């Protein structure tokens, strides 16, 4: 996570990875304690404003604008100015969206540009200086809102249940977390921060992947990732989910540092909220993903790839890769299939018992609202341990009636989410009772639950799948897609963290927890020891600008490989960064564009992209002086060849 902070502290710190991480954490805890202004002011040059405005609170003539301001960054902004910005932007936004019958997305001023999100009465704006690509700003705003929903569920509900201060602290935390990474390049691509795989023994990455797969033997574990000092070592989740998980990881790290850590503190968990599509993706076994990938084009394909640990796919080049992946994958499948059949069975046979059980106490569903109450207030006091025990005891009381219950509830859960998530890509726009969902529901029934039909309880089951939705998504605002609570389990070994997304029942299932904990503990210790010995910065690499600069962005895993040092060289005025930013947004806008060379007086930069990658390359030296008139001997036009040649040794194949 320390991504945001290295930029800040980078100037004074030499080894970027380690100390900046600590500094980042230090910074964050300071930020949370409130003595933030100086650090925030430094940042103001990047993202100037962020606010959430609730128009429903300002309706009458007498209502003051400030009553609608839910959160405003920078917090020290005079209230007058806050009111001015919120009032004007929200007002203009509403007027324009009425004229065009569509919410405003981008709002530009001469000096700033704002990414806007309008939902119901809520109005978010994230403002950046004019030189940041607007696509990046929009993406960051979406991430920010997503992040909030991931940890707090619906925004409207959160504001009903929690004090504004609590939520403001959360917005501040997420906002800081999402502030641009160590370099401008990270900001442009908004990518995950990963460990530098070139310095790490590939076997360690393989080991990390194996740990994750081992955890998945427990059917309640959906997916996981391993982080080391705030950088991703291996992940089974999509980049978006990984990014969200990392926020909490960095927070617990800060706590682990401040409080004397005991073994208990090493394991923690909190509830998180997944969208139906996220959940469906996590729950579907690899086999199913393969099956579904042809029906949901393109987007699933990449995700499928990330599911196989990213370390593996990254280091292996081509052919050898697939053969390597074979073995680890099959146990993975194996481990999953019993889980599925188990739940299937439970759906089949105890259907009557399930329906009787439901009204009494449908375990995961109905306890949710009280539960989320119970969760948030303790957290407001930042008592995570208490929170956790609270949750555990609650569940062991309420959920411990019978195993059948759990299974039944869980399968209904599975069923529902897969039903709902049936519309793949559009899942974010998912609405309760959408006609599209009905269809996908039918499809799913046909395909997966033929057995149910034969058993004569197919229709009843379908109803159950549909019914539990309203209690979940008990929002006043039908616009928001309902989210499903899941557990985020963290196991920390010093700088190393194993983060698992699990079914809520995981925490009440002592046996599973024990098993996961013990099975992974030794390997985690080993991995931590090994990673800890890796020199943080390869000697000589930074500061020595090679004869060329490159940046290689993996759009699917959202990772960036570059030889441009994160700190001084990554300044926005750097010609390479400027060109890359411009080309990146141009690539985003023009789908058919494959490669480009652009030259200014000072620099010629070559950019190329494929479905999965974007690569940028600049050669230093050489005679840039030229007349600008077309000339085939011009060095700028030899860039593609040079890039192909030079980047091979970085594992980038441009052929």
């Amino acid at each position, binding site marked *: 996570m320390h991504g945001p902070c290295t930029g800040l502290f980078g100037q004074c710190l030499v080894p970027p990875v380690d100390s900046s991480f600590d500094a980042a954490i230090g910074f964050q805890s300071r930020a949370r304690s409130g003595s933030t202004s100086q650090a925030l002011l430094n940042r103001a040059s990047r993202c100037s404003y962020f606010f959430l405005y609730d128009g429903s609170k300002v309706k009458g003539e007498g209502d003051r604008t400030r009553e609608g301001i839910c959160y405003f960054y920078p917090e020290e902004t005079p209230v007058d*100015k806050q009111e*001015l*910005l919120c009032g*004007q932007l929200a*007002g*203009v*936004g509403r*007027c*324009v*969206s*009425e*004229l*065009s*019958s*569509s*919410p*405003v*997305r*981008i*709002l*530009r*001023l*001469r*000096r*700033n540009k704002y990414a806007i999100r309008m939902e119901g009465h809520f109005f978010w704006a994230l403002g950046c200086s*004019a030189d940041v690509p607007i696509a990046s700003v929009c993406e960051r705003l979406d991430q920010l809102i997503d992040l909030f929903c991931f940890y707090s569920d619906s925004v409207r509900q959160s504001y009903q249940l929690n004090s504004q201060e609590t939520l403001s602290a959360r917005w501040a935390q997420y906002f800081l977390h999402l502030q641009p990474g160590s370099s401008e390049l990270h900001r442009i691509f908004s990518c995950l921060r990963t460990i530098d795989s070139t310095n790490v023994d590939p076997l360690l990455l393989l080991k990390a992947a194996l740990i994750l797969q081992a955890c998945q033997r427990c059917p309640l574990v959906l997916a996981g990732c391993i982080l080391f000092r705030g950088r991703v070592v291996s992940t089974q989740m999509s980049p978006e989910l990984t990014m969200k998980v990392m926020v909490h990881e960095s927070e617990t790290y800060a706590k682990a540092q401040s409080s004397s850590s005991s073994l208990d503190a090493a394991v923690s968990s909190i509830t998180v909220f997944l969208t139906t599509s996220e959940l469906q993706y996590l729950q579907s076994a690899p086999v199913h993903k393969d099956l579904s990938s042809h029906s949901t084009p393109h987007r699933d394909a990449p995700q499928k790839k990330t599911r196989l640990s990213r370390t593996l796919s990254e280091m292996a080049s081509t052919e050898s890769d697939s053969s390597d992946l074979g073995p680890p994958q099959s146990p993975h499948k194996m481990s999953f299939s019993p889980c599925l059949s188990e739940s299937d069975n439970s759906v089949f046979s105890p259907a009557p018992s399930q329906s009787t059980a439901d009204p009494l106490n449908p375990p995961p569903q109905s306890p949710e609202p009280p539960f989320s109450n119970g969760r948030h207030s303790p957290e407001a006091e930042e008592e995570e341990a208490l929170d956790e025990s609270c949750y555990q005891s609650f569940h062991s009381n309420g959920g411990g009636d019978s195993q059948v219950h759990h299974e039944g509830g869980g399968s209904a859960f599975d069923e529902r989410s897969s039903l709902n998530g049936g519309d793949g890509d559009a899942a974010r726009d998912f609405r309760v009772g959408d006609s599209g969902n009905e269809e996908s529901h039918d499809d799913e029934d046909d395909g997966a639950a033929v057995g149910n039909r034969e058993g004569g309880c197919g229709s009843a089951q379908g109803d159950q799948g549909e019914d539990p939705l309203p209690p979940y998504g008990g929002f006043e605002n039908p616009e928001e897609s309902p989210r499903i609570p899941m557990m985020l389990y963290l196991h920390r070994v010093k700088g190393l963290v194993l983060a698992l997304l699990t079914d809520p029942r995981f925490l009440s299932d002592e046996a599973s927890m024990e098993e996961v904990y013990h099975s992974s503990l030794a390997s985690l210790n080993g991995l931590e020891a090994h990673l800890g010995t890796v020199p943080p910065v390869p000697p000589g690499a930074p500061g020595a600008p090679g004869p060329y600069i490159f940046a290689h962005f993996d759009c699917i895993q959202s990772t960036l490989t570059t030889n441009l040092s994160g700190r001084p060289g990554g300044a926005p005025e750097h010609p390479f960064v*400027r*060109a890359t930013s*411009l080309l990146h947004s*141009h690539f985003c806008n*023009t789908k*058919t*564009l*494959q*490669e*480009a*060379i*652009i*030259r*200014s*007086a*000072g620099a*010629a930069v070559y950019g190329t992209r494929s479905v999965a990658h974007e690569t940028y390359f600049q050669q230093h030296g050489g005679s840039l*002086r*030229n*007349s*600008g*008139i*077309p*000339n*085939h001997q*011009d060095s*700028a*036009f030899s860039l*593609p060849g040079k890039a192909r040649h030079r980047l091979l040794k970085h594992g980038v194949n441009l052929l």
Partner: protein
Amino acid sequence: MKCLLIASESAEVLFYWTDPEFQQNIQQQYGSSQEEGQGLPAFEDSISTLFAPIIISCSTMVDRLGDSYTSFTTENNHIYVLHQFDECLYIAVNGDGEEGEDALRRKIYVMKKMIEVRFGMVTLSSNLLRRELRPQDTEQRARLWKHLQGLLETYSHLRENDQSFLVEAVERLIHPTLCEQCIEFLERRLVQQLNSSAERAGEEVLHAFILVHTKLLAFYSSRNASSLATSDLLALIIMAQNMYPSNVDQDDPGPEVGKFQKPRTRHHHKMFSTSGSGPESFYTPEPSPTDRDSSSSGGLCRRMAEDSLQALEVPPPDPSTPRRVFLEISGKDGLYPMMPHSLYCLPLWPGITLVLLTKIPTSAVALSVYKFLEAFAKLEKCLNGGQEGSAAARGQLAIHDIRSKLDKFIKASQQNCWMILLNSLRSCLYFYFYSLIPWCKNMKTQLCGIYRQCFLIDSGPGDFPQRLSPRLQERAQTMAQEKLMDWKDFLLVKSKRNITMVSYPDFPGLIHFICVDRSTGQMIAPSLSTTERTTSELGKGPVAQFIKNKVWSLVSTTRNFLRKGYSTVTLRDGDFYFCYFLWFENEMGYKLEAGDIPLLPDDSAPIGMLAWDYYSRKLLRYYSKNHQGEVVRCYELLTVHLGVIPTEIILQHCRQLASKLWEPSRNPLL
């Protein structure tokens, strides 16, 4: 879904243009909130009501934050671009995906340019301009807005379909012999005769040129005329096209021309339809006023039919009345913008127009007004900038200077309107420092007012308007018709196939190119015809349309890169390979080293030559800093190749094109 709106700071609509979809959209929205009858005032009301919050928020932001909106984008990709010129806020909207932000901003700047050409220095006073753009008399307002709407539509049409308006440079018809003959004709016969005639009423023809559709056949400037800026020439072409629209996309020249015309004008065209086969006497001067009447009003009718607004019958203006246009002239001591001229557009045949630009007898007054305006502006700046004491001292001197000069000038001019000015000039005999700035402002406004009275107010219906006499205009028209009679059909065809890619057999894989000489504001490009009826090398319809779209998007892409300082761009896009080069040469053709290029903010004036000459005002000025005393020329080349051609070959092609195109001897067609 397109709209362009000009509003004052108090949200008063000063001008608007919408397409039918946008109008419908507005009416639906307004109808839902308020039932009201339709009609012009009602629509104007609803558009003003709906936009008012945006306009007011805009001025709030300027007042309180010192920043202003430049654009909005909605999730369904409607784009709003806003720009404030003095106290006029321009808002351009697109909701159909056909125009991007850059195109909308360009439209705004072009609109402003057209208003400047129409109103001259009156645009320097927001107060006067506001009254000028929104006349109290509704009929007069309707007529003015209709005219401006027509100009805007003509411009949009040209920008979307004409390569010369895409890159904003003038395209010449490439036929050296004929061109030379025509220039000689314009010089020796036409301009000479007109300027020596007694019926010219004191006017003097400065420039004369012949347009075939939008392409320039011949251009002649008299010896004592300053050169015509590319920006102005392009604006004049838009005006000529607006008066006599040529359906260059539809009509085939020759016998079928009449088919696409309004019935009312048919007889007129029939007369010419058999040209080339009939006896010459058939065509000899018959351009009676009625003929011209019908052709011009035919054009007007078409415009009005296209117009989204409810047609309010506007009487066609007397075709022999010139249009007052305000153009830049470069005197010995610098540039003088917005100097009054009279514009005569004489249609020779449909698609071919003779344009005369004359200097009016009183134009020297405009020069003086401009000088005084400049002096007052300088004085005001000096007063605003400096410390109170020193500024006042410096101001004193300047004021004395201005006052004595102005005093002398007013006495010399002996005109009524100037006497008012004299009063306010004297009113400041006992001035105080704090009252000086308002006084300067007031003087400027008054000068603009006088300028308006001198050059904008039509003389009453009673007296004869100042102009070349109708008989003289007829004679000019007839002479030109006689001259070009034999060439007419050829020219109409030629204008559509000026250069074709067939002429470039040595460039295998080259699909299209555009080469622009920014120093002269001229461009060369193979014609891109996309209609079903004409077949070009690119084939018909969809394929040609596809290439055309690619070229159009390439131009806007390269402008974006140029804005950020990149003067060389190559792109591999789908099956094509695009190149863009910008370079400098000195007068001898020696290539100069590529230097830094100014970086422009996102909301700066669009790169081009029509609304604002980026190349001479910004780029060359910037570049020439390191090349003092040297004439620097700027060239641009865009090419489209098939993607399978090796890059080395493509670059060789580009180099050959770059070196050959402007050397007439080696151009296959020159």
